[in-house]
């Protein structure tokens, strides 16, 4: 992650990795863009023509104030209006685990974007495994800070499961990286071995199988 390390933008580590994957000048859609940290970075450093979708009014206002193009709304609805191939890359960071029908969503995203980048918390991290094994309770970690009764994470994803899922739905995995994060996820490092056990997040770039 040389590129990300060099510029060291103050944003979540998974977003730093994602940013390093984006080609300069590309058309990017960021779903659930929050305050627009990633889009602003891409605009300033990679001359990206970006659009964000965000549900919270205050975050939308913050983004537009910062000079970004952002739509307020539920991205599952909003993505439907875009014509085929409208974007080069669609980014879905740390949200896939909250989507009821991930298959339908991914197919829709691959319609409007040439490539889709997803990042998601890896539920099979060793800490989560140990908690379940020794306490017999649903894991609660930094990356998965919720109790079973208030978690927005309706889909339990592991890196291994997700790759199997991609084969099932016929989507090609272009690029992948597993990361281990610390310090509120702002810093981290790339994991190369035993990723499904050691990584807190999986990040993958997908495209339609030709």
């Amino acid at each position, binding site marked *: 992650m040389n590129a990300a390390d060099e510029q060291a933008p103050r944003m979540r580590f998974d977003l730093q990795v994602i940013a390093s994957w984006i080609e300069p000048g590309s058309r990017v859609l960021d779903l659930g863009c929050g305050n627009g940290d990633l889009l602003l970075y891409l605009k300033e450093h990679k001359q990206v023509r970006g659009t964000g979708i965000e549900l919270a*009014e205050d975050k939308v206002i913050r983004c537009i104030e910062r000079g970004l*193009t952002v*739509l307020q709304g539920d991205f599952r609805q909003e993505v439907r209006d*875009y014509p085929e191939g409208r974007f080069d890359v669609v980014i879905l960071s740390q949200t896939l685990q909250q989507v009821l029908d991930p298959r339908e969503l991914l197919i829709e995203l691959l319609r409007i974007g040439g490539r889709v980048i997803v990042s998601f918390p890896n539920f099979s991290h060793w800490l989560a495994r140990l908690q379940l094994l020794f306490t017999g309770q649903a894991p609660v970690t930094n990356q998965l800070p919720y109790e079973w009764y208030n978690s927005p994470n309706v889909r339990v994803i592991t890196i291994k499961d997700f790759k199997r899922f991609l084969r099932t739905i016929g989507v090609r995995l272009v690029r992948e990286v597993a990361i281990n994060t610390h310090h509120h996820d702002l810093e981290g490092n790339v994991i190369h071995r035993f990723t499904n056990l050691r990584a807190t997040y999986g990040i993958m770039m997908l495209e339609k199988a030709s």
Partner: protein
Amino acid sequence: MKRDSEEAVADCGTKRSGILLVERKYFTFAEPPHEMVLDSGARLGPITLAYETLGELNEDRSNAILVLHAFSGDSHVAGYLRENDERPGWWDNMVGPGKPVDTDRYFVICSNILGSCMGSTGPSSINPRTGRPYGLSFPMVTIRDMVRAQKHLIDHLGISRIMCLIGGSVGGMQVLRWCTDYPEMVVSAIPLATTTRHSAQAIAFNEVARQAIMADPDWKGGDYYDGPGPRHGLAVARMIGHVTYLSDEAMREKFGRRLQSRRSLSYDFGGDFQVESYLRHQGEKFVDRFDANSVLYITKAADYFDLEAGNGSSLINEALARVSFLVISFTSDWLYPTYQARNLVSVLKKNGSDVSFCEIEAPWGHDAFLLPNPHLDDLISGFLDRIYNEHCGQ
């Protein structure tokens, strides 16, 4: 023509003793036999538009912002016409030096609409052929006709590209009409609290307002200019309008069931409640400043507004794919509800336009777009700042 326009922009918006003084100007065109042809096929001329400008046009004429006013508005968008004026223009909280629409940076133009009575040609103007007010012989004008007339003014000012069009309500309809009819002249647009087509509900309220005017015996088929005019009908029309500009919550908070200047119910029709008193006051105030026939014409123009008519939306247009949009709606606006703004956004996305959208949480109903609101300020100033940096190359 060019020299005229330079003079026109040179001395506007002088700051004197801390207050921003502006001057109302008039532009007359379409002198016979070169009358403007309207959507209805009728010809109209000469046409005068009242307009005001603030700030200075930059050297490459790229910093112009056209503000389009709502149904009963006028060209007096901000500042003061005279030093001892009690109140500034209708959007003084938004437009001025250091304000979101910053006149230290942008050249702001606001023109009164065709068909109005605030200095532009409308039904109360004198028909040069008869020497008498037009009345109902004034041809029906549409939002497109209003925009067509504004285009003459913009040409006269020597501006070929408008950095941003901003307008709410009927002003938002003009923003969208500008976009469909002259997309190559538009860099960006902010339609606020508006719609792509007037709904049955909106037409219904306008029709009740028109009927209130036309049912007044003093309306006299629109030929009332030598008499008192339909004062009562016009006041009722305005009262209906004000109901649609507020919201259930706004009325509950503002008036509730509170009584006006009394402790108990009167058991007559003199008016018990504060909300009645408010509406009567708004109605009476309006009668003194607005022409009843203009209400008829402008409401009809709004009712005719429909960008979805015919074969698909007129917003589907290759040239519009280069225009940046900021669409804004308000949660409690039931005259032009958020779903209508979302329809607009949806069409613009399909068209490939760069579009931002925000629904602002506000309890005040349709009126919210005119009221001071820090969220609205941040959205507009941030968007304009970006457009300025991208297009007025610093």
